[in-house]
């Protein structure tokens, strides 16, 4: 009973204090709020990036082998997946595809022509990516049809002017993505009939793609009849290494070692992961800086009011408060303040994370939450209690006269 009323008294006095010192209260909890908010959000962002990229790779499957000109991803640091930033090196052609088709253990094999270009339809003109490939491409990329159908071997053989349209591009060009079915597109002067629209994949390039038979590109789009890349889908994960070296052997008959590179997806994934390791460290550093900034804010406010608060401690001591009473009072205040600030920061962060999740796979991380909360609160509590402890150690009159 005595203890309860004591605690009640402490809470009452703390809240009375907040009411009267609104500015100090607001600024202190703001410091903690910002610290928690920024750290949690930054970590959520880092996790989101990682989830996003991993998701992309997962949808492709880890059994993908890519033959790229130059020395591949690890070498020249080229334009990324399917990008055109890689200069020099081999120009693959149909003979390479035929040679590689003799390999055993492969499930899919497709040449890839890649061009970014403007796509016109329905009176609209939007940027998209034209991808020339064979029917294996759909299986390899695990495309799921939204409406219509995928084109097949026959269309490749006939150099048919047919296209499978990515979701986002279809959405941009037509009222509804599915409306694109049966419509005609114009790309670099070629008319293409949309035979299918695919479901959203989450990958920007794929969602803005116009996938056509590679043979159809042999013309104004691709006069040299060469391929940017050749994709191989290996039957099982265990065979990736073996298929990769067998393919390399075949290609070495025509090209020099430095003219092409075999790139495994899992290899890219580990490169990407190590990049994310660095990005996460950077985000963490930024987060720590905002924690420190928040902490300095709290410290400033506490020091700006230290004279007034020391005087208050002196007065309370003079009328009978023990050192313990003072410490409890200031501890209660600081803890409440830190928790309020931290909770608001956390709620805001959670709200933002939930909102952003609609577009991007950000995620909350318990450790991040605990660390941010812990560090901010520790700073808040330390700078709340430390001056009070110093004041309580003075004689009441010294505290009252403190300057």
């Amino acid at each position: 009973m005595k203890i309860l009323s004591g605690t009640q008294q402490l809470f009452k006095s703390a809240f009375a204090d907040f009411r009267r010192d609104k500015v100090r209260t607001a600024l202190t909890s703001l410091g903690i709020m910002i610290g928690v908010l920024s750290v949690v959000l930054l970590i959520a962002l880092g996790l989101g990036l990682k989830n996003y990229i991993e998701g992309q790779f997962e949808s492709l499957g880890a059994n993908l082998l890519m033959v790229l000109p130059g020395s591949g991803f690890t070498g020249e640091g080229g334009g990324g997946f399917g990008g055109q930033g890689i200069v020099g090196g081999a120009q693959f052609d149909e003979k390479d595809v035929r040679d590689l088709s003799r390999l055993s253990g492969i499930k899919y094999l497709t040449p890839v022509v890649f061009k970014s270009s403007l796509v016109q339809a329905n009176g609209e003109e939007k940027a998209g990516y034209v991808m020339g490939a064979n029917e294996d491409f759909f299986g390899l990329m695990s495309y799921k049809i939204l409406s219509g159908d995928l084109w097949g071997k026959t269309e490749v053989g006939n150099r048919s002017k047919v296209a499978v349209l990515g979701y986002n591009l279809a959405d941009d060009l037509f009222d509804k993505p599915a409306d694109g079915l049966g419509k005609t597109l114009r790309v670099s002067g070629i008319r293409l009939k949309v035979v299918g629209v695919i479901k959203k994949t989450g990958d920007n390039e794929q969602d803005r793609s116009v996938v056509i038979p590679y043979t159809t590109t042999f013309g104004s789009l691709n006069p040299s009849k060469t391929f940017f890349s050749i994709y191989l889908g290996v039957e099982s994960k265990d065979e990736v290494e073996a298929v990769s070296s067998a393919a390399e052997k075949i290609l070495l008959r025509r090209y020099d070692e430095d003219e092409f590179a075999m790139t495994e997806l899992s290899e890219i994934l580990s490169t990407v992961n190590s990049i994310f390791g660095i990005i996460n460290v950077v985000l963490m550093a930024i987060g720590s800086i905002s924690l420190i900034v928040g902490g300095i804010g709290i410290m400033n406010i506490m020091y700006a009011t230290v004279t007034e608060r020391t005087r208050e401690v002196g007065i309370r001591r003079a009328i009978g408060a023990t050192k313990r009473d003072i410490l409890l009072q200031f501890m209660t205040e600081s803890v409440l303040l830190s928790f309020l600030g931290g909770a608001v920061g956390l709620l805001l962060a959670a709200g933002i994370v939930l909102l952003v999740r609609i577009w991007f796979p950000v995620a909350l991380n318990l450790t991040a939450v605990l660390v941010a909360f812990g560090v901010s609160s520790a700073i808040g509590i330390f700078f709340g209690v430390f001056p009070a402890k110093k004041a309580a150690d003075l004689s009441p009159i010294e505290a009252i006269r403190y300057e």
Partner: protein
Amino acid sequence: MKETRSTISLNKVTKEFLLGDGSVFTALKEINLDIKEGEFSAITGPSGSGKSTLMHMIGLLDRPTRGGVIINGRDVSKLDDNATSFLRNEFVGFVFQQFNLLNKLTIKENILLPTTYTRKRLSYDPSERAEYLMDMFGILSKKDQYPNKVSGGQQQRVAVARALIMRPQLILADEPTGNLDHKTGTEIIDLFEELNKKEGITIIMVTHEMEVAERARRQIRVLDGEIVSDKK
């Protein structure tokens, strides 16, 4: 004559202050003083003579550099923080020369503040007593105001009410009438006199007004940190 025991004794109390330039200023010089239970004393002396410093020693608000303060037969320098705080809370009521009210608490909350630190069960309702004191001092209408929003005289009355809320055995008042008009000043002294006579509360007050000092039954004069006269 009835033998009364000493409520407070100062035994060669010296208080030195270390000044900014490194020199030492002696505000109290080996003061010996016995205050008996139920006494009503006035301390007078020129400004800077050490009256407030002396009151702080008696009220346990500061520690002497040398010498002892004995309260009810116990040397308080040997007491721990809890015991000292207990004495400040329940034994003394201190009226400061500068009031020392908390501006973020209302007048009523200021008056009630000592009761929030008590460890014993009070025999009266603190809120009722606070209202009674405020009523007596004519500040009841200001009870929800903040101290910095009322006049100096009203603040002084709040300070006196706060000193009285715990029904202390000893009241130390540093210039309690300093900011009051003659009439209210007289009322406060009347009140002190009544508390002293009826309830046997020991009162020590600092004043520079002869008229006020003469109301006390003992006059102690301080000069340059020494007691130069002590009349009963």
